[in-house]
């Protein structure tokens, strides 16, 4: 395959957007979009994890037996995500504390494994890195757009800065999905990353 970097970028951002077209990673579009700052951090993490794991898996692709390829993919993805977590804890303890469970949950994002399977398994390392990175950017574009609306209406702010006037009544429904289900027993649609993102992509 000899796709051009420019085309890969446009595809991943628009024509083959991981969320809108491939319908991957959609659990987190609900789980992590109730404020823009968290969404940005999460999507930057996903972009880096996708880029580096695609690169590594592409380097290893001729050595990986088909029988265990998914196990190896998960291993490599977990490796990078845990590495990010360790570095944050050591060098950015405040950010690490605020992110809490977010970082570990990147492992379960389907886009990472999707790109490893669909692109890195058949392409050279550098272009796989680029594909992973741009997939992450496509994911980021969609999630930040959703988060802008949800934070604006749910908290009356954007990136934590208040923009709505004093008397604005926040739409709590924008920042919680629990009450969307009849009876409010929303175990399926809880907005929390622990429930939502772990159920897969």
């Amino acid at each position, binding site marked *: 395959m000899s796709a051009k970097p420019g085309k890969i970028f446009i595809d991943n951002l628009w024509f083959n957007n991981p969320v809108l077209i491939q319908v991957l990673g959609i659990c987190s579009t609900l789980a992590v979009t109730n404020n823009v700052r968290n969404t940005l951090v999460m999507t930057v993490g996903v972009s880096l994890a996708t880029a580096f794991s695609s690169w590594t898996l592409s380097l290893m692709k001729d050595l990986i037996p088909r029988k265990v390829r998914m196990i190896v993919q998960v*291993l490599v993805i977990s*490796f990078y995500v845990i*590495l990010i977590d360790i570095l944050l804890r050591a060098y950015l303890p405040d950010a690490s504390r605020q992110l809490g469970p*977010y970082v570990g949950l990147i492992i379960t994002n389907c886009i990472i494994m999707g790109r490893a399977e669909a692109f890195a398994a058949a392409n050279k390392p550098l272009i796989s890195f680029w594909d992973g990175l741009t997939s992450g950017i496509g994911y980021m574009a969609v999630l930040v757009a959703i988060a802008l609306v949800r934070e604006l209406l749910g908290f009356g702010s954007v990136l934590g800065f208040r923009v709505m006037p004093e008397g604005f009544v926040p739409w709590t429904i924008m920042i919680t999905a629990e009450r969307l289900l009849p009876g409010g027993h929303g175990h399926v649609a809880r907005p929390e990353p*622990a429930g939502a993102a772990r159920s897969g992509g």
Partner: protein
Amino acid sequence: MKKKFDRENIAYVVVFSFVVCAVFVAGLAAANEATADRVRANREFASQAAVLDALGIAYADPAEAAGLYANAVRPIEGAVPRAYVAERPDGLHYAVEMTGAGLWGAITIVAAAGESLERLDGIQIIAQNETPGLGGRIDEPWFKEQFRGERIAGGRVRISAGAEAGGSGAKNPDDGLVDGVSGATRTSQAMELILAKAIARLAEVAGGGK
């Protein structure tokens, strides 16, 4: 032409899986080991800073915090969970750690009060895994600052939850009532329970218990 290397051979699959796991896990172990001291120092600072925050002792940077902590605060030996005593101009103040169940995982707080247990000095959150943006907002300053000087009524400080919670911070320190986080009723309820346990523990420690 050379025979193509057989990747599906069972012996290769086993050896490959083993080696790959060993290599990546060793990489993580090395990273963990290399940063262990830093992480420990960060934790130490976080724990000292939490106690100072709860007691309402202001500090500018980690070095000053360490100094103030060394001068003013003394851990109570043998206390489980951890408890601290601090000598302040107006008498002895106590700080205790307390852990309880949140919505997703354990929440650990530090709560501090003077000997008379009339009012809280303040609280600080050491660890929580609540939903970021919802329950996770218990770690935001507006929420924690509400407890500064709040009156303890009947052994607890109530946290309003659900529809009656303003979600922007209660101003009155005399009613023993603070605002919960809107959209995070269960986390707010959990905090009220954990705080009640912490207040009971403060009474125990102030009475000479461990």
